[in-house]
Every structure is written in structure tokens, then in C-alpha cells.
């Protein structure tokens, strides 16, 4: 393990630079942009889960007083198929048809037309005046029924991809994939115990508190400016450019503050519509979704059916593991089944395994990324099966995981060998944790599970500018969703050797800073952080050479230490050190303004592992589950701002517990979501949860100068199985499916 390094700023938790504006109501979120002369846009949505659209007539709406523009699918260009976007992207032709339906409505709530009017009320009345003729088709709502050979098809042109031969019939199975190693049969033969099960989890939503919102204005030259809440304004610009067939340089995107995303704001819904409406109307158009629209028409994550079979020896060694995964993609291909398949066995060294994944179309909203997309569903199944193995062989669940834990050099199921990773360190920390060594409270049960996420690198840019007085501006393009400006400032402070307070970090718009991929994949502190560090190193190189010129030395005779230029060791010179402020003050005489920059495609995002455990209590009368305590232990590589790392772990735990205990999309037989509001789609509230204890493990990522691994996604993975395993421990009854809502628990306890 690498030695612990003492840093001055990295590893402290100062107040974030955007903090004061966020506690005083000044911060501008997606719905807070208003422009003079602005219109309000609203979307007409399909009342059918599956229907052919025969005719859309906008004329009556357009004739109404106060209505200034109306569009439907026919107003959008045909878009060629092609991959776009990072995490949460997909085929741009599908995104285009999701933004506005063309010939078919594929889920209840699918956008069919939109209007812009002088008030929201007029826009809403105008929607009622739009005539749409539908031919209703039977909805396909269950993932297994959708896979049946005689199922109603969502897309007659969908032929299952990745089969050995192109199938002769279309199917709702958009693609299949397989990962395999070793000899499965031989592995199961070596097993002393075998556990097998099927685990179902319904769709769940990210549930960010801020609904999607944007304001677009197109001028007479055909140049658009769009303000929106997004995890990636550069990718929103790219998607809008492709969907409308506009040049990228005609589109400027400004990311507002973002009120949560968790993967759900990585794809456009409103923006291309608002731009088109604004172009037609010649006035700014603001569009804000209602909460109901967010539930019905933005991407939740896949509902899933996972079948797992695992064999182990009585000493705990896993000899074989098999998984079959079917994930709902919603209306268009692109369920996160691949990352589900790649993550399910990732924490373990398993010689013989097979995973088969299926990406399945159903008449529900197209899924979007949700925190560690695809991993929670699959890993829930396996971590529950492992719990049953541990029970059967009478082994502590942490010891079982330790006996199989992946370590440096282990070949990941998805291919590469792991460099230094922190899974074993997390298990060891859990075994020693006071919450684990204390007895389980009377009447409660304890559950244990592992979590994992790959993390990604991708493209980032950063610029560092030194002001005339030596204060520093860091400009980058990753929307700050949870305090990342503070982390950037800390890494810049550490690298430059100047106080954190001397630095201000900004998130630039698409015209004021270089390209950055989405804030997603837990990449921002790692990849954009790397760009910030490199841009600071660029600054240091320039400051050194300006000091050298001032002192009449060669560049290599100057060093940068503690925020100042000094003569290198051994260089004999009677000069006063030059601070960043000194170099800045003399900049006009030494070559002009000081500007550093870096752009990169970051490699080596280190995988992040976690161990979670919790004590949960079940009320046998009501079926309600109470979380008595919950502990998250996770490898952060290096926590740049530990309080925000803890916050990621606590927030992920809360989301995972909500998913495990209550959250689900409930559909009627017609494919209409019955609980499209926070009253009935019940996310955890403060009185549902205890304090969430955290322990940060630090096994530095060798690919980052400060050892950073992404931390944002891993925390949601383990809580699902923690809850299942704790309820099993508390009640003696194994419930495979989620959520563990009161009716499901009561049914299980009464033996149904």
C-alpha cells in the first residue's frame, strides 16, 4: 500500500465557494432563469402506453390568442442512428424520438406535441386544443412477457443484436451479451453448497428534487442560448445539435446550478423542443416539468429480473457462479445490463462464471443512468445469494467475502487486472468496526453486502487564470452537483501551494471553457480534477520561467515551493522568493497575463469498492421496516474533501435504502403509472432514517496525483442487499424481491 502523504489542503473540508449563494436563495437553478418577453412552453403527452400516431393537428391550438408556436414530431428533422454521450447517452435517433414521438407513442407520457404561449395557463389550454388521432396498441409491460416469442412488438425493426446469427424475426430483446470464464459445470461439481434464486426489482426513479427546466432563446441570426439544469451542458449541446441538425457553434449552453441528477440529467428532454419553439416564435421560451412529468416521462432505472446460481465449498471458496439478467430498457434500447453483468461478480475472484444479459424493450419511459447504473439490481441478487451461502455453511458473511475478495492483480470478470484496490481493506475495516462487533439489538437483524463501481475517466478541460493580485480563478466545465467546486479549489491550492481562500472555482458555459463530458460515472473529482492539477502545473512552469527571467537564470535553476519561486538547491543567488502575487504583479513586464490550461481524456479511473452493513427491525404487525443503524465503509482512494465524500456515502445509502424498502413504479394494466408523485412514490424522509455512519478507506489510485477514486456511485449499490439480508436475519424468512414494503413483508411472514 502506498504511504500516506501529508497534504496541506487536500483532505480538509472547507466551505464550498458556491455555499453562501446556496444557503441564501441566491443560487440560480434550472427554473430560475427568466428573460424579457418570455413565453412558456408545455408538452402534450400520450395518454396511451402504446399507440400508433395517425395524425396530429396543431391548427386549433395555433389559432388561440396568446399561442405563439406549436410543434409536433413532423417539425423535427429525421435523425440518423449513432451513439452519443457518455454515461446516460445512447442512440441519438432514439433520443430524438424520445424527445418528440414521431409515428408511435411508446409509453404513457411520451411527448407528442408542444406549444409556447404567453402564459402557462394559455399553454395548457392550447394543449387541449391539439387534435391527435391514435390507434391504441396493446402495451407490453412485463419484462419476461416482452421476451416471449409471440409478444407484441414495440419496434418492428428491432432485431436482437449480438446473437451468433442475425435473427429472422424482430423481437423486443434489443441485445444480448455474455461474459464467461472457466468451466461452469466443473465448478458446480466442486461445490459443497449451491444456492439458486430469482430476484425481481421494479423500476425506480432517481428522484432529484429539482424538476427538469430550461429557457431557450434564438435570435434572428438563428443563434440559440439555452440555460438548463444538466449534468453535462456540452453533451446537451451535442444532442440538441444532432436532434435539430444545427451547427454546434449556433448553440450556446449555460449550465444552471443543478438540483440533483444522479444520472437522470445526462440526457435531453426539453431543450431541443424549447429551441425549436423559440425559433418558431422569435421569443424566449421557458419550459419546466411538473413532478408528475418527471416521473412519467424522464428516465428511471430498469426494472429487472435476475436469476443467480452460486456454488461454494464449505470453507467459503466460491467455485462457480452463474447469472441471467433481464433489464427493462423502457421504450428504446439501452438498459444498463452490460454494466450490471460486468459488476455482478466484480468484487470476487471467481474461476468459473457465466453471465447472460438481456436489454428488453417495454412500454415504459426510456431508462436513464441512475447512480452506478445497472449494478444495484444484479449485485443485489448475488449479494443475497452469498448471504444464503454463508448461512448454509455457517460462516460470517464478512469472512465469506474476504475468502473470495478481489485484490491487486485479480483479473476482473470484465477483463483487465485490478491495480491496487481497497476491497479487502474495507472488509477488514468492517470486521473491526464497533457497529459490527457490537451485538445485534434485540428483535433486529443484521445485513451485510459489498458494493462496487468501475468509475470512468473521459474528457475534461480546465483553465487556471492568475489575477493581477495573485488570486486565482479555476474555470472548468463540470456542473457542480455536490460540492465539486470545493474539491477543484482544494486540488488547485495544494498544487499551487496557495491558500484555498485565494482560489475561486467556476463552472463555465460551453463558450467560456473547454469541453467536459458529463458529471457522471463518478468522474468529476478524478478527471476534471486531473485537468485542474495539470493546468496548475502549467501555471507553475510559467511562473518559474518568469522568475528565472527576472533573476537572469535558466528555468531549471528555479523551483516552486509553498506557493513561491525560489532558486533551486545548489543555485547560489541572493534573491528574494517570488510569490504567486509577486509574479502576477510583474506579469505585464514578464510576458503578459498568466493563463494555464489542460485538456485530457483521463485514463485509469480506479474502481471503488465498499462494504455496508446495517441493523434493521421488522414490525410483524404492520410489516414496516425500521433502520436502526447503517454503516458505509468505502475506498475513496484519497478523499479530497472528506465531508463531501461522507455526504456521497450517506446520500447513496439513503437512496439505496429507499429503493430497497419502498420505492417502485406501480403500473395499472394499461401501462399508466399509478404513483407519479412524492406522496405515493415514497422516498426516505428524515424521520425514516438514523444517522448514517461512514468510514473512508484510502487506498490511493495510482492514476491520479492525489490518489482520487470516484466515490459518488458505489454507495447506492450495497444497501439493497443489506436490507434484504437484514430482514432475512430479523424474520427468518428470505424475501427475494424488492421493495421490502409492508404488504410484501406481511405476505411473506404469513407464508404467502
Amino acid at each position, binding site marked *: 500500500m502506498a504511504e500516506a502523504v501529508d497534504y496541506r489542503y487536500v483532505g480538509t473540508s472547507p466551505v464550498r465557494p458556491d455555499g453562501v449563494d446556496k444557503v441564501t436563495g441566491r443560487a440560480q437553478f434550472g*427554473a430560475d432563469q427568466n428573460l424579457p418577453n418570455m413565453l412558456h412552453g408545455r408538452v402534450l403527452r400520450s395518454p396511451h402506453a402504446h399507440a400508433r400516431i395517425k395524425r396530429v393537428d396543431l391548427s386549433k391550438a395555433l389559432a388561440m390568442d396568446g399561442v405563439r408556436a406549436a410543434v409536433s414530431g413532423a417539425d423535427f428533422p429525421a435523425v440518423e442512428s449513432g451513439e452519443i454521450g457518455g454515461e446516460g447517452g445512447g442512440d441519438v435517433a432514439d433520443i430524438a424520438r424520445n424527445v418528440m414521438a414521431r409515428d408511435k407513442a411508446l409509453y404513457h407520457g411520451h411527448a407528442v406535441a408542444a406549444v409556447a404561449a404567453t402564459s402557462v395557463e394559455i399553454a395548457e389550454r392550447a394543449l387541449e386544443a391539439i387534435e391527435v388521432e391514435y390507434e391504441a396498441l396493446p402495451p407490453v409491460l412485463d419484462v419476461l412477457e416482452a421476451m416471449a416469442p409471440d409478444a407484441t412488438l414495440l419496434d418492428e425493426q428491432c432485431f436482437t443484436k449480438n446473437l451468433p446469427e442475425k435473427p429472422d424475426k424482430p423481437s423486443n430483446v434489443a441485445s444480448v451479451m455474455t461474459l464467461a470464464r472457466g468451466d461452469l459445470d466443473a465448478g458446480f461439481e466442486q461445490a459443497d453448497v449451491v444456492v439458486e434464486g430469482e430476484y425481481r426489482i421494479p423500476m425506480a426513479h432517481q428522484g432529484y428534487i429539482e424538476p427538469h427546466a430550461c429557457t431557450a432563446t434564438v435570435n434572428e441570426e438563428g443563434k440559440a442560448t439555452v440555460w438548463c439544469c444538466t449534468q453535462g451542458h456540452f453533451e446537451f449541446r451535442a444532442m440538441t445539435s444532432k436532434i435539430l441538425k444545427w451547427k454546434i457553434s449556433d448553440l450556446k449552453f449555460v449550465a444552471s446550478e*443543478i438540483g440533483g441528477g444522479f444520472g437522470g440529467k445526462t440526457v435531453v428532454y426539453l431543450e431541443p423542443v424549447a429551441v425549436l419553439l423559440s425559433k418558431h416564435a422569435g421569443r424566449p421560451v421557458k419550459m419546466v416539468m411538473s413532478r408528475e412529468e418527471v416521473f412519467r416521462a424522464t428516465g428511471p432505472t430498469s426494472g429487472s429480473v435476475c436469476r443467480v446460481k452460486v456454488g461454494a465449498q464449505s470453507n467459503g471458496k466460491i467455485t462457480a457462479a452463474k447469472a441471467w439478467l433481464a433489464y427493462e430498457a423502457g421504450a428504446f434500447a439501452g438498459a444498463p445490463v452490460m454494466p450490471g453483468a460486468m459488476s455482478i461478480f466484480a468484487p470476487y475472484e471467481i474461476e468459473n462464471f457465466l453471465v447472460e444479459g438481456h436489454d428488453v424493450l417495454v412500454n415504459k419511459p426510456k431508462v436513464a443512468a441512475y447512480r452506478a447504473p445497472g449494478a444495484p439490481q444484479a449485485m443485489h441478487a448475488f449479494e443475497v445469494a452469498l448471504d444464503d451461502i454463508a448461512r448454509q455453511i455457517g460462516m460470517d458473511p464478512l469472512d465469506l467475502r474476504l475468502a473470495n475478495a478481489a485484490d491487486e492483480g485479480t483479473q476482473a470478470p470484465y477483463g483487465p487486472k485490478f491495480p491496487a484496490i481497497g476491497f479487502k481493506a474495507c472488509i477488514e475495516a468492517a470486521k473491526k468496526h464497533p457497529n459490527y462487533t457490537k451485538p445485534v439489538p434485540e428483535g433486529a437483524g443484521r445485513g451485510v453486502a459489498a458494493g462496487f463501481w468501475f468509475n470512468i475517466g473521459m474528457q475534461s478541460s480546465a483553465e487556471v487564470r492568475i489575477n493581477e493580485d495573485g488570486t486565482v480563478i479555476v474555470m472548468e466545465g463540470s456542473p457542480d452537483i455536490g460540492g465539486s467546486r470545493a474539491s477543484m479549489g482544494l486540488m488547485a491550492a495544494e498544487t499551487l501551494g496557495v491558500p484555498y481562500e485565494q482560489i475561486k472555482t467556476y463552472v463555465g458555459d460551453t463558450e467560456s471553457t473547454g469541453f467536459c463530458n458529463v458529471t457522471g460515472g463518478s468522474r468529476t473529482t478524478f478527471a476534471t480534477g486531473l485537468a485542474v492539477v495539470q493546468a496548475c502545473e502549467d501555471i507553475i512552469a510559467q511562473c518559474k520561467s518568469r522568475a528565472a527571467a527576472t533573476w537572469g537564470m535558466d528555468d531549471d535553476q528555479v523551483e516552486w515551493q509553498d506557493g513561491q519561486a525560489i532558486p533551486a538547491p545548489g543555485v547560489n543567488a541572493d534573491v528574494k522568493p517570488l510569490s504567486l502575487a509577486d509574479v502576477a504583479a510583474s506579469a505585464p513586464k514578464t510576458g503578459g497575463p498568466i493563463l494555464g490550461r489542460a485538456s485530457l481524456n483521463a485514463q485509469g479511473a480506479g474502481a471503488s469498492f465498499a462494504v455496508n452493513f446495517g441493523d434493521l427491525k421488522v414490525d410483524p404487525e404492520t410489516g414496516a421496516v425500521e433502520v436502526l443503524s447503517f454503516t458505509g465503509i468505502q475506498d475513496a482512494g484519497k478523499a479530497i474533501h472528506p465531508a463531501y465524500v461522507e455526504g456521497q456515502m450517506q446520500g447513496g445509502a439513503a437512496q439505496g435504502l429507499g429503493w430497497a424498502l419502498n420505492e417502485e413504479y406501480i403500473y395499472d394494466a394499461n401501462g399508466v403509472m399509478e404513483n407519479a408523485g*412524492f406522496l405515493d412514490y415514497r422516498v*426516505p424522509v428524515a424521520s425514516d432514517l438514523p444517522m448514517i455512519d461512514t468510514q473512508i478507506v484510502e487506498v490511493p489510485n495510482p492514476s491520479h496525483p492525489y490518489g482520487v477514486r470516484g466515490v459518488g456511485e458505489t454507495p447506492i449499490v450495497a444497501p439493497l442487499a443489506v436490507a434484504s439480508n437484514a430482514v432475512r436475519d430479523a424474520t427468518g424468512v428470505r424475501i427475494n424481491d424488492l421493495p421490502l414494503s409492508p404488504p410484501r413483508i406481511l405476505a411473506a411472514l404469513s407464508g404467502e
Partner: protein
Amino acid sequence: MSKMHIHTTINGDQVDFLGSPQQSLLDALRDEVGKLGTKEGCGTGDCGACSVIVDGRLVCSCLMLAAEAEGAEITTIEGIADGDGLHPLQEKFLEHAALQCGVCTPGFIVAAKALLDRDPNPDERTIRYWLAGNLCRCTGYDKIVRAVQDAAEQLAHPA
């Protein structure tokens, strides 16, 4: 649609505005008065992002008609700091990193202010139940509860 003339006091200022009979107080605050710090998360009374204090009572401004605010005294997030500096709740939210995205934060601070105004020394359970009408999807509530506890402490024993 004819508009109504509504007279209020907002954060100590006399504020008159024209509102339509159907308009919620939330929409009036945001669209007529320009108080954009009050947020809409749901519009149905389920998330608390729109919390304001009306005549000493904590309300979801999305559930109240603007017309019902006639003559009322309203405190919004913009009125919590006193001009000299942040309110202890605001300081403690920052110190404890009790916000991630921050969209729920105005609602939480207003709701917590209403709590501390009536109960200066709430225990953890009281805080959790009082704030149960405010949704935060980012933090898991841990740091929010601690920030409120710490702010209560500071208000009781100013340094």
C-alpha cells in the same frame, strides 16, 4: 383573467403585487415578486422545497393561494440572514456540508428556522419529525440534522 391586488409584508418590506385568483403563493413569490430562492420540487405539498413562514406558521407555499396571503407577514429564504451576516443555521449548513446540490436547502433552512423559533432546544427525534416534510435526495439527512443541532446550540450559547 382579472388580477387581484394583494398586500403583504415580505422579509420586513411592504410588498404589494397583482396575482390571479388561482395563483399559488409559490408562483406569486417567484413570478410576481421575484423571490426565486423559494423552490418548487413537486407543487403538491410533498417536498417542502417551497417552505415559507406566514404569520409565524411554516407553510408549503405551493399549497396556499396568493390571495390568502392578503395582509400576511411572510418570511422567505431571502429574509433569514440579517444583512450583517448569515444566520447560524446558514453558517452551520455550510460548515457541516449539509447541502450537496442545494435545491432543498432554502426549504430546510426556513423549516428549521420555524422549528427553532418555537423549540430552541429540539432533540434529534424532534428535528427529524419536524423536517419530515422536507425531502432531500442528496444527503441522507445526517449532516442536515447535525447542522440544525449545532445551530440550536450556537443560538443558545452565542460565542
